[in-house]
């Protein structure tokens, strides 16, 4: 288990915080760690800031993420990693599509010229939109409280996808699956970072698997052609017990 101390925290939305810490490790965009809150639980978390100063950006979903947000500067954090196959970076114009806390894993890819499509439930939950220039940003909210009302697809329709050298997306599987179908229709390449239940993070427990691939190890980032052969993508997943359910 690696330990580090929290340096500072930044509240990003009513439910999301960025937590900074010092960790001397070479992380690539899209990689994650398993964060342990002793006595509470252990969950996967993308490294949202990969420079000399590292950070993760955590949304308060349930017990473990709440316990992480309850920590203060100076407190110790525990984690293992980095894990996972990172995003493949390209030179040229890139489009980043993030749904909810999915923006966290895309954050290291943001640069001067990157274009952002940021989706959120409502205005308050918009994450990292301020890091894009106004002309390079589209926002969608479910309730229409900011930007386009509707889901990510409504935003995608406003963009000429062909002008990008690579598209990166991260968010809930339903969103990603619909985006995937749209990309396929348009005929563009993309890298999608998925989420599944994770227990081990190192490719042995099978809880994160999708169509025979282990998301924690073969992913979390997958290319379009890989997603093509994953029978379960957007379709089925296993619960914490291993029970097969419809997504």
């Amino acid at each position, binding site marked *: 288990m690696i330990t580090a101390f929290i340096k500072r925290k930044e509240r990003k939305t009513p439910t999301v915080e960025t937590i900074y810490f010092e960790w001397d490790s070479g992380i690539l965009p899209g990689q994650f760690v398993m964060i342990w809150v002793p006595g509470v639980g252990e969950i996967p978390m993308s490294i949202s800031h990969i420079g000399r100063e590292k950070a993760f950006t955590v949304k308060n979903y349930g017990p473990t993420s709440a316990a992480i947000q309850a920590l203060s500067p100076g407190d110790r954090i525990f984690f293992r990693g980095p894990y996972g196959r990172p995003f493949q970076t390209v030179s040229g114009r890139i489009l980043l599509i993030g749904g909810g806390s999915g923006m966290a894993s895309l954050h290291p890819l943001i640069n001067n010229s990157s274009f952002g499509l940021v989706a959120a439930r409502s205005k308050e939950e918009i994450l990292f939109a301020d890091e894009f220039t106004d002309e390079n940003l589209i926002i969608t909210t479910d309730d229409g409280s900011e930007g386009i009302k509707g889901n990510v697809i409504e935003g995608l329709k406003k963009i000429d996808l062909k002008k990008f050298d690579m598209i990166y997306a991260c968010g809930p599987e339903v969103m990603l699956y619909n985006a995937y179908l749209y990309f396929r229709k348009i005929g563009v390449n993309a890298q999608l970072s998925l989420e599944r239940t994770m*227990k081990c993070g190192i*490719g042995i427990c*099978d809880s994160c698997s999708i169509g025979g691939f282990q998301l924690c190890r073969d992913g979390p980032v997958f290319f379009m052609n890989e997603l093509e052969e994953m*029978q379960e993508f957007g379709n089925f997943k296993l619960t*914490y017990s291993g029970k097969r359910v419809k997504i």
Partner: protein
Amino acid sequence: MKDSSLKTEIASLKLENPHILASGILDENGYTMKKILEEGAAAVVTKSIGMDERNGYQAPVIADAPAGLINAIGLANPGIESFGDEIAIAKGSNRPVIGSIFASTVEEFANLAIRMQKYRVDAIELNLSCPHVKGFGSEVGSDPDLVEQIVNELKLKVPVPIFAKLTPNVTNILDIAKAAHKADALVLINTVRAIRIDIHARMPVLSNIYGGLSGPAIKPIGLRAVYDVYRETGFNIIGVGGIETHEDAVEYIMAGARAVQIGTALMTKGRKIFGELNSNLLQFMEREGYSSIDDMVGIGVVK
């Protein structure tokens, strides 16, 4: 150099090679099992399945250990009712699927075995050895009388081969092996009871406190069990514990195993390990002049 064959047999179960995926590792999802069979595993053992759905323990469910791993997944499983789909998907590969089951009574074991058989598994493995769940596994598996009753009852009730997986966490594994003598094969060994404490968190890492140690660290312990039981009984044995290379597999085979299972090495080597083991083992056999696995079984045992 001569032509060698990797084929082996355990009771009536015919295997293309001696390398089987161990229970509990990448075998909860049918698609994963199918992929691993396509990668070259001769067979897969499913995750241990019980009567009812269980979430198992809260993460952390694994902790690191020198040359190994400690796990306390806690027998998470969807319950026998829901597991038929996964077996059906895995069987799409046309290679054997071995159904692992756990229970605390003879009746439940019988019930599970009958249902596994209906799912058309090729053999049934009895988990008499999980070291970290109260009332199951090694608590059952360290009582020779109970082991004997379970094995004997299952041999009466189901026609598919029955494998009994034993725990090394006992004073004398031979007593348990002998109690299970009606099984078609013994699977040796499950994990070794272990703990990991985080000195900064000042508490055990696993949410369940205790877990089972696997990986290379336990290879010498597994070999001892296989060697002992083979020498004293000559039973069919499937060796498991810390196998990462074809040399490790050969060590188990020479100690008396007719096949081996691979678990934790999936973490260090990934799914491609099965293909590597197959080609490296074949090369070894050709170089050293063994024409079959059978030629090597038990030859390292000093009588």
